């Protein structure tokens, strides 16, 4: 499979990447490329230019402090999955990163790329929304609740580059996904987090965009246990339906995965 022709440029710094990306409306950032290159091979994407930011050291780090974990946008999934700091601070996040794709994908794919792409079935958006994280860009800081806008749509403006994701450390959290057996993307994935201020439940894979389940959050705030949400029926309205699973089945899986995620969080 041969992609359309494009021009490749490797940025030596974040500011150079900003200049390079501003020069062409059809330019795209290349981080790990584990979604973009596959889309380009199938000729579903046709950027005129790729600005490679995967080598930028200034975007590759994991820092813990002030009650949160900050992860540089170009940090690959495998580094998050195996980071002793992440495993200690937010074990559910490390576990989630270890479930993305397969080992080769996790060596290349990055957190910034996954969040910017906002694939409806990607894992990271569930953690970012479930933890109430902030997405820090070259221009501002965006709350997760305001960031994910729709299928492959985010609040990012043209030429705006994600620098880091800041994830508050919860009291406890869990993530469960029912993976598509071929792609390992989530048919349904649920991230549950209990913090000082409340409970957040974020669902990926089920609908065109990651979303929260208010009824479950209210019930879990009263009692953080799988039984607390056993009676909650999630409507299948607006859910995805395809050859892999019907909307009705996905709605059912939201309940099952949420209960298992709560059980994991209590472990």
């Amino acid at each position: 499979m041969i992609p359309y022709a494009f021009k490749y440029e490797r940025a030596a710094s974040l500011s150079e990447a900003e200049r390079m990306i501003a020069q062409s409306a059809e330019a795209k950032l290349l981080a790990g490329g584990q979604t973009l290159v596959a889309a380009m091979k199938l000729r579903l994407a046709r950027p005129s230019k790729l600005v490679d930011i995967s080598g930028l050291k200034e975007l590759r780090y994991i820092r813990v402090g002030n009650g949160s974990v900050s992860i540089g946008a170009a940090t690959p999934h495998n580094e998050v999955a195996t980071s002793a700091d992440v495993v200690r601070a937010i074990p559910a996040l490390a576990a989630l990163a270890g479930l993305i794709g397969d080992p080769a994908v996790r060596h290349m794919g990055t957190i910034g790329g996954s969040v910017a792409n906002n694939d409806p079935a990607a894992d990271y958006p569930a953690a970012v929304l479930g933890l109430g994280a902030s997405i820090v860009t070259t221009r501002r800081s965006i709350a997760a609740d305001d960031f994910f806008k729709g299928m492959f749509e985010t609040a990012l403006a043209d030429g705006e580059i994600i620098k880091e994701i800041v994830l508050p450390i919860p009291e406890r959290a869990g993530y469960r996904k029912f993976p598509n057996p071929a792609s390992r993307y989530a048919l349904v994935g649920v991230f549950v987090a209990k913090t000082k201020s409340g409970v957040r439940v974020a669902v990926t894979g089920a609908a065109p965009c990651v979303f929260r389940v208010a009824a479950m959050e209210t019930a879990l705030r009263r009692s953080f246990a799988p039984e607390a949400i056993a009676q909650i029926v999630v409507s299948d309205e607006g859910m995805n339906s395809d050859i892999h699973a019907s909307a009705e089945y996905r709605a059912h899986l939201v309940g099952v995965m949420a209960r298992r995620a709560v059980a994991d969080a209590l472990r």
Partner: protein
Amino acid sequence: MTAVSMTVNGKRVSADAEDRTLLVYFLREQLRLTGTHIGCDTSQCGACVVHVNGRAVKSCSMFAVQAEGADVLTIEGLARDGKLHPVQEAFRDNHGLQCGFCTPGMIMTAIDMIRRKPKLDRPTIRHELEGNICRCTGYHNIVSAIEDAAKRMSGGQA
């Protein structure tokens, strides 16, 4: 066309490639290293796995220009002085292949997982093999081969 230079199996190489040339085509067509296979169009099969700077990656999912200056290891770079790598040896001894098409990717993935996870049990090996598809074996002997290779490489068995 851009001149792309990298180290492949310990040798400095340089060849012209378009920016859109995938690393796997660069290896197979420019360098004639056809041991790295292409088994799908969707980045899912893992037949093309090579090591770039010591990490297993799918060479169909990155461009050759991204590997400028990198250290690349392919299946052709494993045997030394006519002697197979312990993982290759273990695949042969355990009958870890039938048609052999997926084998280069399986072996490169296996070496990477043994390096990252010195203690490998069978469920872990299966989880680690999620990105490598085999249509012949049912994986059983591949798992056995990797388990065996991990033991040999840790010195637990001669």
